[in-house]
């Protein structure tokens, strides 16, 4: 009994010391900091150039050894459906008629390639319970299947609704999304499959800072043909994939996304509450104190009863 009391007091004392230590630490909690790579690789898509040939879809399927699509890649009728990347295709091209007309009064289509945007501060990577998703130095948001447990929190977190899931695999399903051809770019020094094959150079691959310069130069030199907005420069805190367009982005399927990284609020709250585990330690110390003051009778009660029986 006495031992019990002594151990109890000692532990409460230790908790109290922890509280004091944590209090000083908690003042040192830093403001949220981006963990984005300084100058990653990226890709600039010029919607004014894309002709909707679907060669990029085909190259993606070949390079990433994805299953054959139900309709062949030269079947352009699929362009009329608003498709999304899914567990069988990392990238898709959709056709929009935003209202522009040519000299013969025909509607001019705009083609939009959709894939993972490879955010600078990816919400999916911040959310991932095991850190299976990581932002690599070269810009790719990389998925490590060996860590994944399939909680699909990345899919909840992604503001662009990109990661897909192999829902019909009962035991070893994977999260499926564009890899930015990470291994191909990093180890073989090649271009991503889609970029390399594009016949009209609708995609430009390079350092993100350079791509932003190129994008702004194109807009400046031909302001009549472009809207003054580089989608991805600020969206979600910046993305490795960037788009310029001749028509307003909201008319060709692009959604409004906050310009601050989506990770900021959740990570700030989480780290200010739990850095160095200060709050649980403080709470433990407080509850210990209350238990000592009010609950001590219960120790005696329980022990008395125990000794009686």
């Amino acid at each position, binding site marked *: 009994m006495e031992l019990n009391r002594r151990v109890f007091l000692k532990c409460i004392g230790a908790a109290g010391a922890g509280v004091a230590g944590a209090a000083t630490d908690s003042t040192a909690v830093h403001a949220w900091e981006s963990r984005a790579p300084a100058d990653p690789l990226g890709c600039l898509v010029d919607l004014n150039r894309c002709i909707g040939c679907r060669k990029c879809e085909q190259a993606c399927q070949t390079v990433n050894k994805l299953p054959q699509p139900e309709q062949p890649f030269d079947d352009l009728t699929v362009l009329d459906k608003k498709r999304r990347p899914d567990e069988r295709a990392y990238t898709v091209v959709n056709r929009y008629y935003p209202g522009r007309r040519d000299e013969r009064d025909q509607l001019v289509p705009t083609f939009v390639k959709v894939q993972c945007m490879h955010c600078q501060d990816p919400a999916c990577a911040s959310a991932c319970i095991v850190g*299976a998703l990581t932002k690599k130095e070269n810009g790719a948001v990389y998925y490590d299947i060996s860590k994944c447990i399939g909680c699909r929190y990345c899919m909840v977190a992604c503001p662009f609704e990109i990661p897909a899931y192999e829902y019909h695999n009962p035991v070893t399903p994977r999260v499926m999304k564009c890899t930015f051809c990470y291994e191909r770019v990093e180890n073989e020094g090649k271009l991503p499959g889609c970029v390399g094959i594009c016949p009209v150079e609708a995609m430009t691959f390079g350092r993100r800072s350079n791509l932003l310069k190129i994008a702004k130069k194109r807009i400046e030199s031909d302001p009549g043909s472009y809207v003054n907005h580089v989608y991805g420069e600020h969206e979600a805190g910046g993305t490795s994939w960037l788009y310029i367009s001749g028509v307003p982005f909201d008319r060709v399927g692009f959604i409004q996304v906050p310009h601050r990284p989506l990770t900021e609020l959740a990570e700030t709250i989480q780290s200010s509450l739990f850095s160095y585990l200060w709050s649980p330690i403080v709470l433990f110390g407080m509850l*210990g104190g209350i238990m000592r003051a009010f609950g001590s009778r219960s120790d005696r*009660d329980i022990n008395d009863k125990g000794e009686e029986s």
Partner: protein
Amino acid sequence: MSANPQAIRAKFWTPGVLVMAFFMAAGAVTVLARFIGGIGYVSNLSTARPWGIWIGIDVASGVALAAGGFTTAFLAHILGRHYYEPVIRPALLTAMLGYTFVVLGLMVDIGRSWAIWKPMVYWNPHSVLFEVAMCVMFYVNVLYIEFLPILVEQFKGRVKMPGPLAALNGVVENLLGLADRILPRIMWFFIISGVVLSCMHQSSLGSLMLIAPTKLHPLWYTPILPLLFLVSAVTVGYPMVVFETTLATASLKLDPEMKILSPLTRITVFLLGTYLALKTGDMVIRGTYVYLLDGTAQTNAFLVEMICGIIIPWIMLLSPAVRRSRRWLFIACALIVCGVLLNRINVFVVGYRPPVSENYYFPSISEMLITVGFISGLMFLYRFIVTYLPVLNRPGQEVSA
């Protein structure tokens, strides 16, 4: 007043138990189908809607409604209010079973159930879900440890296992004796840890959706979501105890324990009022009341949650007559329980709007069968355990302590 918990030893296979067994069997078959055909075979989950009722009900609501465990432990063990001891064990049992089924629900929902141990090895300290998972893992074990004394009490000195297991009788007896000597000395640590771990993950469950500002409807998306989750979990703790104690005592024809349940809900008036003030204040400050009359499913779900789940039961509980009446107290507490249940469903399912796809989600029959199967399993085990272990207070027998 001392508690006198005893095994009920009532007839087990009542018609109600048979109904539960039926739903359990249906759920079990569906779980089997999920592990043969995949999540997509049994559910309506999609790229746009990665989380459905398995997360909204089985996991998030399961955790919230198991809050009776840590709130009563705080009351009786930390504040030393032994008057409430008779409801401690049933609340602990509900929490233990609740969390066990949260883990089982997760096993069905995550794609790679066999990899559920991986967060212990691969840490992502930035992930809210990682913190929730760690807390739930530790807390489940804390609950099992808190439950051990009940096993010790029942079996110490009378371990008689049948057949070949009889050889182990001595070993088990020694283990129980050891537990009986050690547990009372270290239990304070687990009781405090249980409260701390609960506060951590109850709030962090709310933080989960903070990373999706464009998806969660503004009526629920607020930076104080973790605070709202914590306050609502603490609030629902005692009403949940009233709810399940009333159900259990009515079903097993025991003393309704109104002497304990009535005063237990006095604090609920204050807690629920706080929760109401926080939610209303948050709505006013962020100006989200502009959505209140737009007639969408989200808005209606929010109104039901606020009016039926918070305002009506709060007004009811203000009246001492309601708190003294078994029936009206039960109704008020059931409303609070349903309100918190609806809140969790709203945050994880109803309020979740995919930004690109117009993909409306409604749970499939199989998804519902699995959820109903788990709830039936929980109730089945509750009844089984109170029948054979000393959990519920014995009717009419005041102990002469």
